[in-house]
């Protein structure tokens, strides 16, 4: 055997240690060469498997994608792209048991590169899948302030939009509001971005913010039908019916097929035509509107009573329904109508009459379902008055 020749070498410790060192260095170099060739082959195989995995993801075949990504990772266990893709596939496979594994991969990546925005975003999505607001907010924020490979501003806005959508889904409106403010401040001058922000403001029931974003979009792109309709709707929801009518009119003109805008425009016109509290109308017109509203409320009450099978002639104390009580109120208010024409503008008679109208509209809406036409307009006026009172 070759090693028997060692006996012919002079036996001294330095020589032996030198020989061992040379042998170790040679072995190290040889194994290093072997490992590097093996790794090169494995990396090539890993890339092929990774591409296969991506194809599977694109086709929605997550189980196959996971197997391919796993195989790719076994070829190159340190590749963070493979790990990230596997974690994403595990997360998106709609199997809750796989979330743990996805999180494990991502946490390992996060420990290596805590500033990596893509990893933080993936972790945020895992937390969002779990419904953990605290973790999701932390990782989304990490993603927003992390390092992006390309288009950092766009990606940060996307991450913030995703966070806002998650918070709104979780009814965390206070946190969503602060994120919306931050989003609005960092938006590029891009109508699409403003429109998206407007939608988020609307989901957060911040109609003033939604109106502002739609107006911003219109500044960049005047006549944009979506922005016009959005601004109209936002103004309508916030009770600014005159502004709403203006935008909705333009929206319907720009896009006659927009049925929702047309419906809101009709309703807004009705509200504007029937609101006795409008500031730019004469006393006579106000009295006329009050009388018409009163009559409309009486009709609505009778129709609702018929629909509900309630006899309005019954005593309010005997009936279980609130409708006979409203009928009594309505009858009691009837004499006040005659006083409207004679009374001075400062009296509280209009308010008292309209209070009865609003009570009837609200109660009939609760008893007989949402109203239509003028009744709906009166109900909206009632809600606006109530909101203003509060």
């Amino acid at each position, binding site marked *: *055997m070759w*090693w028997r020749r*060692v*006996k012919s070498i002079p*036996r*001294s*410790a*330095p020589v*032996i*240690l030198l020989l*061992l060192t040379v*042998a*170790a260095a040679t*072995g*190290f170099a040889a*194994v*290093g060469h*072997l*490992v590097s060739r*093996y790794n090169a082959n494995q990396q090539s*195989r890993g890339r092929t*498997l990774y591409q296969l995995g991506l194809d599977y993801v694109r086709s929605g075949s997550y189980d196959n994608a996971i*197997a*391919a990504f*796993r*195989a790719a990772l*076994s*070829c190159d*266990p*340190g590749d963070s792209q493979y790990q990230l893709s596997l974690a994403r596939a595990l997360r998106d496979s709609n199997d809750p*048991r*796989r979330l*743990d*594994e996805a*999180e*494990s*991969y991502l946490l*390992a990546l996060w420990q290596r590169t805590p500033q990596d925005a893509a990893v933080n975003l993936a972790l945020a999505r895992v937390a969002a899948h779990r419904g953990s607001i605290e973790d999701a907010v932390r990782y989304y924020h990490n993603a927003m302030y992390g390092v992006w490979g390309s288009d950092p501003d766009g990606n940060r806005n996307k991450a913030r939009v995703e966070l806002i959508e998650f918070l709104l889904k979780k009814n965390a409106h206070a946190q969503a509001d602060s994120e919306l403010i931050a989003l609005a401040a960092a938006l590029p001058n891009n109508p699409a971005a403003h429109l998206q922000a407007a939608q988020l403001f609307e989901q957060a029931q911040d109609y003033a913010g939604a109106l502002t974003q739609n107006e911003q979009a219109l500044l960049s792109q005047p006549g944009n039908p979506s922005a016009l309709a959005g601004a109209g709707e936002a103004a309508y929801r916030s009770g600014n019916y005159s502004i709403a009518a203006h935008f909705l009119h333009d929206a319907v003109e720009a896009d006659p097929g927009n049925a929702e805008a047309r419906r809101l425009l009709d309703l807004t016109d009705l509200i504007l035509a029937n609101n006795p509290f409008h500031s730019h109308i004469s006393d006579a017109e106000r009295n006329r509107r009050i009388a018409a509203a009163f009559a409309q409320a009486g009709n609505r009450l009778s129709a609702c009573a018929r629909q509900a099978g309630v006899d309005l002639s019954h005593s309010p104390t005997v009936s279980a329904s609130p409708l006979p009580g409203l009928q009594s109120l309505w009858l009691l208010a009837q004499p006040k109508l005659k006083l409207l024409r004679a009374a001075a503008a400062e009296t509280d008679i209009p308010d008292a009459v309209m209070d009865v109208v609003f009570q009837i509209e609200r109660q009939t809406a609760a008893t007989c379902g949402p109203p239509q036409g003028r009744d709906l307009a009166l109900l909206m006026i009632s809600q606006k008055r109530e909101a203003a009172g509060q």
Partner: protein
Amino acid sequence: MKANDPVAGAQDSIASAVATRPKTNRLFPTLDGVFHEEVFVLILSVFIGIFSGLAVVCFRLTIDWIHLALLGPLPETHSWRLFAVPSLAGLVVAVLVLHVFPGIRGSGVNQTKSALYIFNGYIPFRTAIGKFICAGIAIGSGQSLGPEDPSLQIGAGIASALGRQLQISRERVRLMAPVGAAAGLAAAFNAPISAVLFVIEEVIGRWSAGILGSVVLSAVSSVVIVRSFLGSEPLFRIPVTTFKRPSELIAYAVLGVVGGLASVLFAKSIGSLRPRLKALPRWTQYFQPACAGLLVGLIAFLGAPQVMGAGYGAMDEAMHGQYAWKFLAILALLKIVATSVSFVSGTPGGMFAPTLFIGAMLGGAVGDIERLFFPHLTGSTGTYVLVGMGVLFAGFLRVPMTSVFMVLEVSGNYEIIVPVIVANACSYLVSRSLLTVPIFDMLTRQDGLILPSLEEDREETILRVEDAMLAAPKAVLSGQDNVEANVRRVQDSPESAFLVRMHPSGWNTITRDQLQRLEREGKGELTLASVLPTQTLPSLYPDLPLDSALRYVNDYALVPVVNRADSRLLEGIVTRESVLDKYGRRRAVEVPGSV
């Protein structure tokens, strides 16, 4: 019979090689003044670690390469390759084992232990090469075996070859095999502490300060080599593991008991199948690995490819809750079957990875079942899987310390140390009470060898000096008193020999006749210390092993047993009669019927 037995044949060839090997120390006379042999061996241990690490890197690449070449990169279900590949590879391995590399069957732990205790540390280098090739083919083709034990033997083989070629002393050559074994195992597991502990617990069988330094150095250097080539990624990605409430220890204790029972089942299936297969005609040995491969392949083909090979990927997935408890339990059972069959067929390969696999699956299954009944349990599936690994290690391999450190080293998480200790202790106790002989001892005894076992040593009652100690004599003489006074003191004493307390310390002895003679010689006025020999009497402590008393009781009529805090305080004495009486009584107890 012996001619047909490859193990016996290999042992013969080893014995003859040992007999012809030069026994003189040719190296170290020339090293005088340069290195002590001890220092040289420590340096050599580092090189053993380096070479073992390099070999294990190549071994792992070989397994991966064979697996990729034969079974492909992507796991395929219901493919003909799943059963064709391990069967055909089994045939190849059988031919190699029977004709080219005899003596490489099995795991390699016992062979290393045999080398240490029987063959003066001799492991043929050919065995290491054979283990590399055959275990690589077997594990790469999907046989249900692990690469750790072969790595251990490869390391031991390299160390043995180096030690022999450098002609260090026989005592140290004998210890080279465990040094290499630690290096090989540490490299395979990427866990140096566990490797060192395993070699101490199972291979060397005793704590020896002389070898510990070498074992640690070789283990650490091999791990450094492996990490430099293959990275420091752990074997598994460890999920978040938690242990919040002490009351949950009951759940882990249950896991320990179940693990202990599974260990017994696993060990008994190997212990009963192995002699039966070995007793079959020699020609069947050509087909036994192939049949084992076919069975493993069929299990994989029918839907459980996770049982093939070491199974680290499946363990990783189990740790992350990928399998339902029913499938985990089935996998544990199938792995016991697959590994038992692969191992007893004589296919070279290890049992460490399968043991971890079975424990992991069982841990996951038990944890999930417990959580079904007690939803408030906070331990995740990953935690139970991790604890389960240690449980089987403790119960099956019967290495309780290694099992604890293995889990801690693999997980890098000390939060679960208490559950691991509790579960491992339960598993170990259950296994020990149901199966008196540990698996490795069972295998060596089946091969006709009796090797020392640390477990048996631990259970052996050690006789101590205090067991043979007689009450301190009433008359203890003082070296500072004169001879006359001491003669008067012993006048009424029935004893013939007396202890003398010297000043400031030490003990001596004198007989009544010697005292009286000194008085007759006119030395009555002299102090006793001045007439006694200057060499003092050796003394013993009560807690010393009784063997240490044997060194003195032949030369001295009585030996003082003194207090460790104050050597002038006499606790008692031992005499030759009292020591022999104690040994005699012990023999009478140990050998039934004898008195």
